[in-house]
């Protein structure tokens, strides 16, 4: 089983780069993107509390390094598909904060014109393929995205994200076999945040190492610290290169953590406050990146500038999402096969 390449063994770091192989400029970018997701999600939580967002809303706070590190290893035209916990993935692919927020508030200018909500967004332009509410459903769909890359003879790669809970769905294993059999350019990413709703990983699976779940089909894999954007990026770069070279699928198990409840109505009795607090204070990906930037001598003013920019984008998105009108009831009859 291939392990994520160790940065120290890869020879000298590039000038201006940190240990994990990101240049200072890239790290700044990663910091910005993670912060954007964090602030966006905090704002979404607030709007939910105010009753402006309804139904299901699964926040990504704590897991930001996963999508940001992976997205930095992707190129234009690579596809992304995920579950209902999708806000971070969408922002990472470059979808507009205002369009995502307006979908959360169920408005006309949302990515799904208000018809999908938090769990169901899509952007052909940014190669983001949803936004799926049925646990595990996106995994076999991702194989199809990867298949069409092969079919059209492009060198594009699909990243299929799913949770530790979803990893127990039957179609995940079927998809592993199919992807390995057809050598599909697919990076499977298990976002192991330790819980599927209120069930901890060790209570849900007999597998003690999820990165080995593809072993019967010889899918190379790595286990990655998902609280460190550089580590995620480095492992993702190796995985993507493997797929792009036509060597078949790759599996990443990213160890991460969600700070908030499963969705907005989660009393959180399955874990202790201390456990959450410990991750927040000791492992936070944004704090970690900020610390590294400071170590590299990045001026406080430059970081402050990013903080301000992000704040502005999120505020603008929230204003936009409240100003945008609700869709007309007649939207029910658009994009549906045949109505009666």
């Amino acid at each position: 089983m291939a392990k994520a390449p160790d940065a120290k063994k890869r020879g000298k770091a590039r000038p201006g780069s940190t240990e994990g192989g990101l240049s200072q400029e890239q790290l700044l970018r990663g910091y910005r993107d993670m912060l954007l997701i964090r602030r966006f999600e905090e704002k979404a939580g607030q709007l939910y509390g105010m009753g402006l967002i309804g139904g299901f809303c699964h926040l990504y706070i704590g897991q930001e390094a996963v999508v940001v590190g992976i997205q930095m290893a992707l190129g234009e035209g690579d596809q992304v598909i995920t579950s209902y916990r999708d806000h971070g993935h969408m922002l990472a692919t470059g979808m507009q904060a205002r369009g995502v927020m307006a979908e959360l508030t169920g408005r006309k200018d949302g990515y799904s014109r208000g018809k999908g909500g938090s769990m169901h967004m899509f952007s052909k332009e940014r190669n983001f393929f949803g936004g799926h509410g049925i646990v595990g459903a996106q995994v076999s769909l991702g194989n199809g995205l990867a298949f069409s890359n092969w079919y059209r003879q492009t060198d594009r790669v699909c990243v299929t994200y799913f949770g530790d809970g979803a990893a127990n769905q039957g179609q995940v294993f079927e998809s592993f076999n199919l992807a390995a059999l057809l050598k599909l350019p697919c990076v499977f990413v298990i976002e192991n945040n330790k819980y599927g709703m209120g069930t901890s990983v060790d209570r849900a699976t007999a597998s003690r190492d999820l990165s080995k779940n593809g072993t019967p089909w010889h899918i190379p894999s790595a286990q990655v610290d998902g609280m460190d954007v550089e580590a995620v990026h480095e492992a993702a770069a190796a995985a993507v290169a493997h797929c792009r070279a036509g060597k078949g699928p790759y599996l990443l198990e990213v160890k991460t953590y969600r700070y908030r409840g499963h969705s907005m109505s989660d009393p959180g009795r399955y874990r202790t406050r201390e456990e959450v607090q410990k991750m927040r204070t000791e492992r936070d990906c944004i704090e970690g990146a900020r610390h590294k930037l400071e170590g590299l001598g990045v001026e406080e003013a430059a970081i402050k500038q990013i903080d301000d920019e992000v704040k502005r984008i999120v505020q603008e998105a929230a204003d936009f999402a409240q100003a945008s009108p609700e869709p007309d009831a007649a939207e029910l009859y658009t994009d549906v096969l045949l109505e009666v």
Partner: protein
Amino acid sequence: MARMTYLAAARAALAEEMRRDPLVWAVGEDLGRGGVFGQYAGLVEEFGPERISDAPISEAAILGASVGAALMGTRPVVEMRFSDFALCAVDELVNQAAKARFMFGGQGRVPLVVREPIGMWRSSAAQHSQSLEAWYAHIPGLVVACPATPADNKGLLKSAIRCDDPVVYMEHKNLWPLEGEVPEGEHLVPFGVARRVRAGGDVTIVSWSQQVHVCAEAAEALAGEGIGVDLIDLRTLWPWDRVMVLESAARTGRLLVCHEAVAVAGFGAEIAATVAEHTSAKVRRLGAPRAPVGYAPPVEDAVRVGAAAVAATARSMMGR
């Protein structure tokens, strides 16, 4: 009688049946924590994790194993949380559970209850709002129950657990907090016996699940206008109470079937067709448009069949 919610009534039914019969057990995701809606709260404390058992997110494997356990004579109650998620296990239910008794010459009995909550609930969008009862009514071998009241959620669930054939048990997510009088102890509601919600001589309205309450509201308004509604809550779609429905429709000469599910190929069509075959009553159907459920309130509301629409249809049947 005790006053309790629709949710608590089902919990009481399960607890009573588990006390009565040690072969009754329940399985599903997050049951140990009381279930996602709290339908199992406190049960693991009383019955232990062997009988209120947590499962990984593997619907097909959960339901398939339950069919096997039922073939061995235990009586699993399988929690699927949302009828939408149960679609991951349709093969186990439709090809395996529903066929075993007939296909194996009467030897393969499957005393299984599959709980599949249905319906629109708090802006849940297209993959968490469906009412799929007609799918299962179409399958020979399955019983389909859709309780509308706390009392029925107790009595029908107890009957479902005692039934030797597979029962698709469809509670409505929006009804969990509904309160009502529930008989204590041994309260069994038989399958195929409808409930007359109110008696009237002008229009027969047939409904089930949450939509019964919408129809009751319409009937109340119509009563004020001098239109008497004979409102029938079907309770179970298979078997269904043809006797009560046909008698009523023949007497009033007007049948309106109303459900939350999509009207096209809904179970209302079956009732309307049966009534048309056996009586000279005029028939009408009301159900959702053939469109998925949207997230934004205006789009979500556009698929609801409200009391005003029910009343308007009844009026037009009366020529008013």
